[in-house]
Structure formats: structure tokens, C-alpha cells
């Protein structure tokens, strides 16, 4: 594989290639839509010998993650992938793997959690595991998926970090969308990502070690938990270091946040993942209409890049947060995190409004993006300000909902 020409890859294929060029040793698998293509491809490559690794299909995500973590603890470079229900089923093992300080990479193909069951995107799945000790990188494009996987291994395996990493992509919007992706060779990646030899891995350590003994008293529990917190915070600094190395070899660079037409903008839209591309397109049009707006994309959700967000939004008049998630009874999940980054700023934006949209793969229209910006400008000028998230739900959405309810033999009574 050469890095000269791009391949047309789906997000899922880009993820599989990311694992392949990272020369993973172990793949723990369990099928779930829309992730399955990733492990199918890896299974094919392991069978054909194109990838020298061990592939095991488990009987559930709960076991799959335990197995992947066990392999990482042994000292192997482990990979797995899941989505929504699978991530939830594996939940307690997320804590186990991070607590073992066993770095590995898991791709989450974001999808809503039932009930009601859906196959479509809702980032509430990945954001509901934000407190588990896993670092989180969120991809907007297929190229980012591949690059973030390579970066994630280097980041997690760094001895100052030693934590597992989730690389997230949006189901369908990215998992099944083909984009040109530059796939580096295994040799090129090896220059960036040396073989994994963890000092505490079973195969590399001294004997008679107890991994994760039970803790009775608060001071030692606090010590180990806080150590993980500091390691996670440290990961941001390490990310800058490794991004510089990454750029030298691959010519692409990444930062915990990305600014798009933001520096000279009076207003900002904050976004994560694939819908950022839709928002970027809309922002170009809004600029043509004379609205001074830019985009701040969050690439890294854990650790949360507080300083970068503060720097990027300092002095803005207003901010709209677009959330492809919903914490019921709370609102958008990014919003409170973002406010934490802004609260102590002298020149903090006067208004920050929260918007929830795109749930279940619902289209995000230009009109909705324009509406978010208009609402923020209006609020800045003295209009309505609310800490509650505004739902993006168009008249067309309402018409379709009424029609569905009629077909189901029920009447529509509004929300």
C-alpha cells in the first residue's frame, strides 16, 4: 500500500485499514450494525494472511471487550469495534480495561440506543461512556478515522498515559460513506508507532504481580483513580507531541480542536463528528449572506480540551452548540462541558445557546443551521436566552410525524 494515491473507502473500511496499518496483534469481534463491516474486513485479512494477527469472535460485546482487554494486558496490541447497544452491554468492562491501564483502541460507530430501537446515529451512546477512563477522539471524515486510530495507539501506549482510546464515527453518515483516504504503509506507520511492549504487560513484566487487586480503603482508591485522571489530562500534552511526529511522516496535522473560518468570526457554531462537514458548508453560505460566523470542531472529547476551547471562543459575541445527542432531562451533553471552559474567561461569549438535532440520522438542513446562528445573534442583541436546549424539528418533520401517527391509527397531539 502506498501513500501516494487515495483509496475510496467507507468509514468502516478506513477503520479496518487503520487497525491493519497499526499492525494490531489481536482483534476481538462481535457483530452489530453499523459496525460489522470493520470486523468482517479484518477477519478476511487475518484469514488471507494479509494481516498477521489473531481474530476471535466472542459471544457478546461484554466478553469481547473483556477479551480485548485481557490481550492488551498480556502485552498484545488489541483492537475492537462496536456500536450503541454493544457499547452499553460492554459498559462495566470499559472501566475494567482502563483500570488495568491496558491501552487498546475501540472504534465506536455511533448509533442511538433503544428503546425505541434505531440503527441510525445519535452520539448519546459514546458520550454516555465519557466517564469510564477511556480517551475519546471523534472523527469528521474517513481520513480522520484512519489517522485517529494510528494516533490513538501511540497516544494510549505512551507510558505517561497508558489508557485505552475510543475513536468515534457517526453510523451511516460516515460508516457507509465513501471518501478518498490516504492509506500509509505498515512500514511508514511503524516509524511513527513502534511495537507495543508495555512494562506491566504479563509477557514483559516480572512475575508475581497482582493486576487490579481489590481496594478496601478510600485513600488508596482515591490515589489510583486520581492517577488515571492525571494521566488522561496529560494525554492532551502528549497528543500535541505525537501530532508533530505524525505531521513529519504523513504531512497531516491534528489538534484537540479544529477552527474553521473562526478567527475573524463574531459568532461560532461548536460541533463534533460528521455533521461538522454539513455545518462547514452552511457556514460558507452564511458568510456570503454577510453573517460573521465560524466553526469550532471538537476532535478530542476526553480529555476535554478546556484551554483550547477557551482560546478559540474568547471574545466571540455568541456561540451555538450543535448536539447530536440528548441527555433526557438534561439537554445537550457537550453544553455543560463547554460552559466550564468559558465561565472563568473575562471575555467570554455573552450568549451560549444549545441546540439538539440530527437525532436518529434526521437531516440537518441549511435552514436549521441558519436558525441556530440567527437565534444566537438575536440573543446577543437582547432577545431570548435560555439554558435549555432548543430542539431542531422542522415543519416538514412535523408533517411527516402527523402522517406517521395517522397511519398508526393515532392522532398527533404535538410534543
Amino acid at each position, binding site marked *: 500500500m502506498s501513500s501516494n494515491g487515495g483509496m475510496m473507502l467507507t468509514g468502516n473500511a478506513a477503520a479496518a485499514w487503520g487497525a491493519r496499518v497499526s499492525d494490531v496483534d489481536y482483534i476481538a469481534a462481535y457483530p452489530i450494525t453499523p459496525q460489522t463491516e470493520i470486523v468482517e474486513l479484518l477477519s478476511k485479512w487475518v484469514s488471507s494472511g494479509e494481516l498477521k494477527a489473531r481474530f476471535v469472535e466472542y459471544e457478546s460485546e461484554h466478553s469481547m471487550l473483556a477479551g480485548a*482487554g485481557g490481550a492488551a494486558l498480556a502485552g498484545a496490541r488489541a483492537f475492537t469495534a462496536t456500536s450503541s447497544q454493544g457499547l452499553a452491554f460492554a459498559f462495566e468492562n470499559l472501566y475494567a480495561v482502563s483500570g488495568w491501564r491496558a491501552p487498546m483502541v475501540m472504534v465506536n460507530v455511533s448509533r442511538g440506543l433503544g428503546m425505541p430501537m434505531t440503527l441510525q446515529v445519535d452520539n448519546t451512546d459514546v458520550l454516555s461512556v465519557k466517564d469510564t477512563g477511556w480517551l475519546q477522539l471523534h472523527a469528521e471524515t474517513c481520513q480522520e478515522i484512519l489517522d485517529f486510530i494510528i494516533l490513538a495507539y501511540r497516544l494510549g501506549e505512551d507510558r505517561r498515559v497508558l489508557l485505552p482510546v475510543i475513536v468515534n464515527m457517526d453510523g451511516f453518515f460516515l460508516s457507509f460513506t465513501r471518501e478518498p483516504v490516504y492509506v500509509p504503509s505498515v512500514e511508514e506507520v511503524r516509524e511513527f508507532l513502534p511495537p507495543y511492549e508495555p512494562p506491566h504487560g504479563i509477557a514483559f513484566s516480572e512475575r508475581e504481580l497482582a493486576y487490579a487487586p481489590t481496594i478496601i480503603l478510600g485513600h488508596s482508591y482515591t490515589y489510583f483513580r486520581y492517577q488515571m485522571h492525571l494521566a488522561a489530562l496529560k494525554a492532551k500534552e502528549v497528543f500535541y507531541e505525537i501530532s508533530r511526529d505524525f505531521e513529519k511522516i504523513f504531512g497531516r496535522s491534528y489538534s484537540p480542536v479544529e477552527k474553521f473560518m473562526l478567527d475573524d468570526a463574531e459568532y461560532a457554531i461548536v460541533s463534533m463528528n460528521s455533521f461538522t462537514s454539513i455545518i462547514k458548508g452552511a457556514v460558507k453560505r452564511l458568510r456570503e449572506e454577510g453573517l460573521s460566523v465560524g466553526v469550532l470542531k471538537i476532535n478530542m472529547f476526553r480529555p476535554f480540551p478546556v484551554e483550547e476551547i477557551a482560546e478559540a471562543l474568547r471574545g466571540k459575541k455568541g456561540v451555538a452548540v450543535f448536539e447530536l445527542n440528548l441527555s433526557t432531562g438534561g439537554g445537550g451533553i457537550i453544553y455543560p462541558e463547554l460552559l466550564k471552559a468559558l465561565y472563568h474567561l473575562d471575555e467570554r461569549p455573552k450568549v451560549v445557546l444549545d441546540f439538539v438535532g440530527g437525532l436518529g440520522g434526521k437531516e440537518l438542513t441549511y435552514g436549521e443551521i441558519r436558525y441556530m446562528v440567527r437565534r444566537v445573534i438575536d440573543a446577543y442583541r437582547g432577545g431570548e436566552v435560555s439554558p435549555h436546549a432548543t430542539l431542531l424539528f422542522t415543519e416538514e418533520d412535523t408533517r411527516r410525524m402527523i402522517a406517521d401517527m395517522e397511519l398508526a391509527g393515532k392522532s398527533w397531539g404535538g410534543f
Partner: protein
Amino acid sequence: MSRYRGVKDIPEEEYVAPGSALCAGCGAEIIARHMLKVLGRDTIMVNVPGCYAISTLFPYTAVKVPYVFAVFGSGAAVAQGIRDGLDILREKRGVNNDRVNYKVVVYVGDGAAYDIGFQSTSAAIHRNLDFYFVCYDNEAYGNTGFQLSGATPYASMTSTSPPLGDSVGNEYGKKDIFEIWRAHRAPYVATISVSHVTDMLNKFEKAKEFRGPKLFVALSICPTGWGASQEDTVRIARLAVETGMWPLKEAVYGEVKHTFIPRRLKPVEEYLKTQRRFRHLFKPVRRDEEISRIQREVEEYWRRVWEKELNR
């Protein structure tokens, strides 16, 4: 022939240190100690929540081999990852054999074996994982204060099956985990008891010959939960075997053979009476119906064994 015939044959090496926080008289400790004497220092123990977790409380550990703690239902899945990880490190990365040449043992209680970890264990057996799975079966959730599990025998009192009013205590029978495992066509499945130590040692020794899942279920006396005297652990275990309530047997690729066949069964009462968890069968009034039901089931079991293995 049997390698271990008497006390003198028991290996002197100790991989379980004395003085852990386990209850005095705990069967799980005796089993772990003898198991590791046979399996040796090149063993990784995977443990999950349960009584034996108390063996390793930071900053102490009573286990002198590498020990990994997993979540309740994931013992066998973690064992799979460790085994596979070590194997691929040898095959692909050329890691030295003595660094990866471990036996992987999942050492868990009956809650993890019969209930919450049942699925992951079944799947690991199905995938023919080369590992040992050893259940110290104290017939309830001992570590949380003795609640009902899939291993609790009929009529046992537990804290979630109190024998109040008309209740007999546990109204369900004990799951036959030996037969369930045997149905997986595992190379080696065995029952063991702390009262029959050479039998136990020989079974662990024999299991070493097989590649694939090697499965053990051990009757693990729980003095605190069962309401028994801590010095009676071995005596109660012996009564369980001699009354026929805990058969000692093994299955090699599904072929069952009993390793101890009592010619005559002691009455189950002798066993039941040693434990407070069965006291309601005798006091305030004797419950003959329940006692004879237990006796009948044991006799039916042994009639089949005698017929098959002694042509009686």
C-alpha cells in the same frame, strides 16, 4: 497410575500464603492451595468478585502467581484474551517462550460459574480455549452474605430464600453444572472435594494432559454461610461424599467415570444436620417429606451409577 497416593506425595511448594483475609475454614482457600501445588508457578490466576477476591486486597496478596481481577461475568473472556494475547506474542513477535508459557486458570465461585458468568464460560469452552476453569462451589453468593444462586441445593436456607411460613427455603434444585459442561464435549470435566485431597491432586495432574478446556467444580464448605463449625470443613465435605450428595467423578471427552464409589450411602440427614442452613428441616418440627425427597434423589442417582459402573 495415580501420582498422589498419600500425604507424603503432596508437593511442598506453596503458592498461597497463609494469613489471608478469607474466613477460617473456607473451602476456597484449601482448593486454591492444592490446585496451585499441582499447576505450579507458571500459572496466571484470573479471579472475579466473590469470596476469593479477599485473597488479594491492596497492598497485600496471598497468591504468589500472577493474578488478574476481572468483572463478575468476564472470568473466562479475560482468560481467552490473555491466552490469545500470549500466544500471538510468541507466534508473531517472537516473545520468549518462558515469558508466555503460562497456564491460565479462572478461579471463581458458583455465582460466576452457574449464573452471571455462565454465558462467557460456555462460549470459551465452545471455542476450545486452552484453560482451566475451577469453581469453588459454596452453593450461594457467599461474599455478599449468602444469597440464593443457581448452585443452591433444594431446601437450603439462604438470605433470599428464608424458610418462613410454608417455605422450604430454596424451592429450586441445584443446576447440574457437571452435565452442562460435559454436554460441551470438553476434554476434561471433574468434581472435587476438600475431603479427598489426593483425588483432587490427581485430577489436576491428569488435566494437564489435555489441550482445551479443563473444568472443575469443587464443593467448597462455607462455615459462615452454611452455619457450620470452622473446624468441621473437611468432615462436612467427607460427609457430602459419603452420603452421596457430592459424587466424585470425571469425564474425559464426555465419558463419565466415578473416582469414588460408596458401596453404601450414609443417610443424607448426617450431612444436613451439620449445617444451620438445613436446620428448618429438623426444627421446630421434622419435615420428613423434604428430607426423604433429598434422600430419594441421591439414591436414584447412585442406583444408576452402581448399575453402570459396578454392574450391580
